[in-house]
């Protein structure tokens, strides 16, 4: 059923991606907007405040929102141009139903018919193969309300255990590591603590491109005298002016953290009092890192020994500090171990829970934080509750008005769902806000699995590369077409405001889900009249949980410019900084600041292992992947915004001149990268800003330009995050431009 009915090019011709540029009233300076709406950018977890100018139910431009305290009006290029996703020529204005005879393989259908067909298809698969045969894939760009509703929809309406989300490709290693060490998964500090740090340590985070406005926080720390240490295989823009740049060999971050802790212990740079009072497990970790003297650390990491010693000295002797990391260390088959290694050096320093002393992962997706708290993860219920915990099930079942036993047990992760398709366990799929054909590794497999599905329903605003495989496409809503809340990188819950109405027959996503529930004959629990009603139920469902939103109201969020969870009572102002010395939490109940019964943080031994696929004689080069500043995730939105595409039209293979020379490849030459999963031919960019043993390709593109066709699907055993950041490759000069170069525009 889900075979592509037509060639890619025919589908692209009808559904895009095409480019939108400012034109008409978006260029006319005489046009006065009807209103200006204070809301947030939809591209990335920073969630910068922005004002959208609206005229005749269209967004015609933006105005910075300087009063919003997180970004003070600052915006990256994605924020400046984000308004161009509205009124887009590719926008889905009607439902689509697969029709082999129609142009592009889909015929437009009236909304009610499409809902009925979608419900019939889901019901048929579940009737024949059981509830778990239909899986639900969701996304971390959804608002908290939508994320909550998706989890409830899967478990209460579809009664399937198979729901997971694309945060699986993003924050899950950090989440698992944080839970093991702190008992809670959230940035420990507000960003306002960064400028007060004496050392800012950034591991595997391309801050300037993936979280651009955080740059100003780091530079402010530096203006006050902070040392900035950056660990990355590439000299990213933030690494360029770091005080110390440690060009780590891909997949070796644990070795570095263990080596740093070794030197901290050797030199007495440990906050013994903090370690004794507030932690457990230090002795085991200390014994383990004994094996990591500087020489061995240098050999494993590929970093000069003197640089490692310098980094350890600055970190060890700092008065205040802030450690930041992101996907660079987390996208690994030992991502959780990497995170634990990072946390160990933070705990050993004792610098957490105080002003200027902080630690955080930088969430990548728009609602990377909130999206992982309210039950769209395969093992989780709202309030960051554990799905296997009987007390958690009882609490949530009560809110949902069902018996605890009726809530399905834990399901499997997003990638495993596709493996279940292969094995026949999963035959139907409902997806929203997820484009796995571009974003999952070894994506040829994913594409084959989509073709194998009996029935596939997509809710989206553009027909992305994955949605091309759908049987029914339901037109959903853009972020600016609905009300709601999002929890940004700091753990601050903010308000997303509706600027325009969904166009044509498109509906708000929550309405689409409720209409599906109704058509399935299981309307109970899906009769919310507004996102605010969903939020109020979410508050009750999260009450008493770790991610407790029960004391939040939309008014309070607006008045305070956001509320940091936990916020357990209406008179509670929220919790900007976690782990303050005398803080209370529902797990420790006053015994200490960390979220365990004894109130103590855990040192956990972080064991070094190389990536699942290390370079060898056949594939001698590391391939790593990541983002560019002008694109967001799988590009469903940003590959349709003309000025952003023009900034960096298509992916290039970054390589060091030393490697390029050996391969006979010049800057701008076509080159073919080959891994055990296939090949990808792109233009080379020869730069001295990458390790000579490593090449880098950004991942936002589709089809023949997609690096994820050749990345490795090995996963971390705990977090199940895929290993995007290291696999083995070989590279050769291509004979000439590949056929796609003349057939497709850069963004297609």
């Amino acid at each position, binding site marked *: 059923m889900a075979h592509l009915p037509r060639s890619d090019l025919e589908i692209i011709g009808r559904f895009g991606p095409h480019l939108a540029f400012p034109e008409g009233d978006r260029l006319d300076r005489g046009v006065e907007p009807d209103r200006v709406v204070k809301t947030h950018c939809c591209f990335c977890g920073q969630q910068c405040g922005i004002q959208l100018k609206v005229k005749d139910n269209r967004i015609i431009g933006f105005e910075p929102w300087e009063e919003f305290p997180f970004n003070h*009006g*600052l*915006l990256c290029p994605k924020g400046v141009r984000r308004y161009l996703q509205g009124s887009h020529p590719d926008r889905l204005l009607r439902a689509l139903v697969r029709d082999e005879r129609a142009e592009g393989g889909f015929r437009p259908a009236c909304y009610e018919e499409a809902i009925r067909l979608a419900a019939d298809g889901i019901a048929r698969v579940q009737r024949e193969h059981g509830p778990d045969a239909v899986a639900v894939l969701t996304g971390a760009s959804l608002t908290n309300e939508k994320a909550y509703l998706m989890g409830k929809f899967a478990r209460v309406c579809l009664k399937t255990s198979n729901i997971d989300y694309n945060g699986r490709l993003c924050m899950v290693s950090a989440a698992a590591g944080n839970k093991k060490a702190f008992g809670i998964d959230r940035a420990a500090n507000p960003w306002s603590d960064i400028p007060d740090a004496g050392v800012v340590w950034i591991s595997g985070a391309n801050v300037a491109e993936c979280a651009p406005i955080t740059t100003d926080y780091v530079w402010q720390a530096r203006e006050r005298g902070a040392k900035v240490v950056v660990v990355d295989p590439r000299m990213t823009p933030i690494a360029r002016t770091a005080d110390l740049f440690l060009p780590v060999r891909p997949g070796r971050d644990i070795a570095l953290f263990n080596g740093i802790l070794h030197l901290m212990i050797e030199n007495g740079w440990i906050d013994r009092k903090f370690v004794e009072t507030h932690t457990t497990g230090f002795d085991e970790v200390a014994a383990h890192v004994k094996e990591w003297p500087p020489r061995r650390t240098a050999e494993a990491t590929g970093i000069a020994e003197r640089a490692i010693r310098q980094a350890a000295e600055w970190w060890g002797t700092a008065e205040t500090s802030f450690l930041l990391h992101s996907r660079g260390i987390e996208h690994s088959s030992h991502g959780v171990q990497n995170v634990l290694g990072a946390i160990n050096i933070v705990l050993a320093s004792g610098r957490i829970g105080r002003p200027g002393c902080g630690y955080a992962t930088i969430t990548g997706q728009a609602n990377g934080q909130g999206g992982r708290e309210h039950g769209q993860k395969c093992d989780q219920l709202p309030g960051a509750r554990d799905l296997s915990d009987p007390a958690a099930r009882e609490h949530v079942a009560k809110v949902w008005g069902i018996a605890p036993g009726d809530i399905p047990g834990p399901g499997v992760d997003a990638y495993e769902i596709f493996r279940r398709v292969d094995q026949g366990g999963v035959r139907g799929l409902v997806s929203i806000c997820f484009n796995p054909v571009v974003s999952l590794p070894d994506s040829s497999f994913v594409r084959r699995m989509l073709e194998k599905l009996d029935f596939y329903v997509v809710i989206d605003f553009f027909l992305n590369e994955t949605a091309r495989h759908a049987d029914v496409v339901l037109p959903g809503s853009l972020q600016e077409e609905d009300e709601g809340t999002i929890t940004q990188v700091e753990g601050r819950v903010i308000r997303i405001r509706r600027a325009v109405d969904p166009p044509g027959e498109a509906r708000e996503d929550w309405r689409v889900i409720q209409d599906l529930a109704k058509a399935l004959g299981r309307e109970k629990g899906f009769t919310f009249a507004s996102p605010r009603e969903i939020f109020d139920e979410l508050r009750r469902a999260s009450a008493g949980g770790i991610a407790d939103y029960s004391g939040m109201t939309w008014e309070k969020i607006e008045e305070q410019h956001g509320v940091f969870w936990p916020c357990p009572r209406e008179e509670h102002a929220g919790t900007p900084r976690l782990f303050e010395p005398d803080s209370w939490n529902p797990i420790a109940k006053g015994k200490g600041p960390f979220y365990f019964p004894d109130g103590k943080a855990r040192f956990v031994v972080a064991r070094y292992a190389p990536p699942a696929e290390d370079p060898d004689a056949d594939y001698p080069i590391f391939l790593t992947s990541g983002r560019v500043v002008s694109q967001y995730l799988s590009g469903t939105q940003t590959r349709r915004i003309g000025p952003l595409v023009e900034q960096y039209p298509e992916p290039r293979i970054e390589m060091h001149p030393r490697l390029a020379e050996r391969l006979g490849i010049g800057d701008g030459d076509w080159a073919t990268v080959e891994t055990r999963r296939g090949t990808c031919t792109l233009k080379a960019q020869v730069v001295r*800003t990458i390790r000579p043993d490593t090449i880098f390709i950004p991942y936002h593109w589709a089809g023949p330009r997609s690096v994820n066709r050749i990345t490795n699907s090995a996963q971390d055993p705990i977090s199940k995050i895929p290993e995007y950041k290291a696999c083995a490759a070989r590279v050769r000069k291509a004979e000439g431009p590949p056929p796609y170069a003349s057939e497709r525009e850069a963004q297609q």
Partner: protein
Amino acid sequence: MPVPADRHFFIDPRRCIGCQSCVHACSECDTHKGHSMIHLEYVGRGDSPQTVPTICMHCDSPTCAEVCPADAIKRTEDGVVQSARKARCIACSNCVLACPFGVPKMNVGFELMMKCDMCYDRTSVGLKPMCATVCPSQALCFGTEEEIRTLRPRSTFVHAFRFGQQTISTKVRVMVPKESEVLSLDVTAALNEEEAKDPMAAMFTEGNP
């Protein structure tokens, strides 16, 4: 309303991350929608991700205005050098060639020189220029000298630049590290003593390494 006398533009190229937010924001500006007036260049991408943003420096004695045969470029009392007036500009490109910072652009289609006017529509009503409002690294920053001294204690600023015999003072300030002296660079300073006496002669010596 003039731009307040105590508010200045500060550029710190060390902070620039090359994201092009300023370029996009500039082209979204109301007075010249669709056209960015900012130059953002890599110094040499092969060697470094270093980029440098260039906006109009708003010279106290603007060379562009001085060489304009049509008197199309005006500097207002508040020190802002305005973009060329459409009614007067004859698209001769004198200003483009003469500007020591390489700022003005000739829009051939419009037969008009266009350049940064420090977002006069915004700055003259108390707002910041669009680029400095959004710049994520605050390499482009708009504020008072006092604010910048408080925010950036390790840096100071210069607004006088030497080009050969010409010294130009500008409304726009460039941030430099406090600990390093402000130098006037001369190639001869880096040559050995003999060559320094007659640098041109050295360049033409046969077999000069």
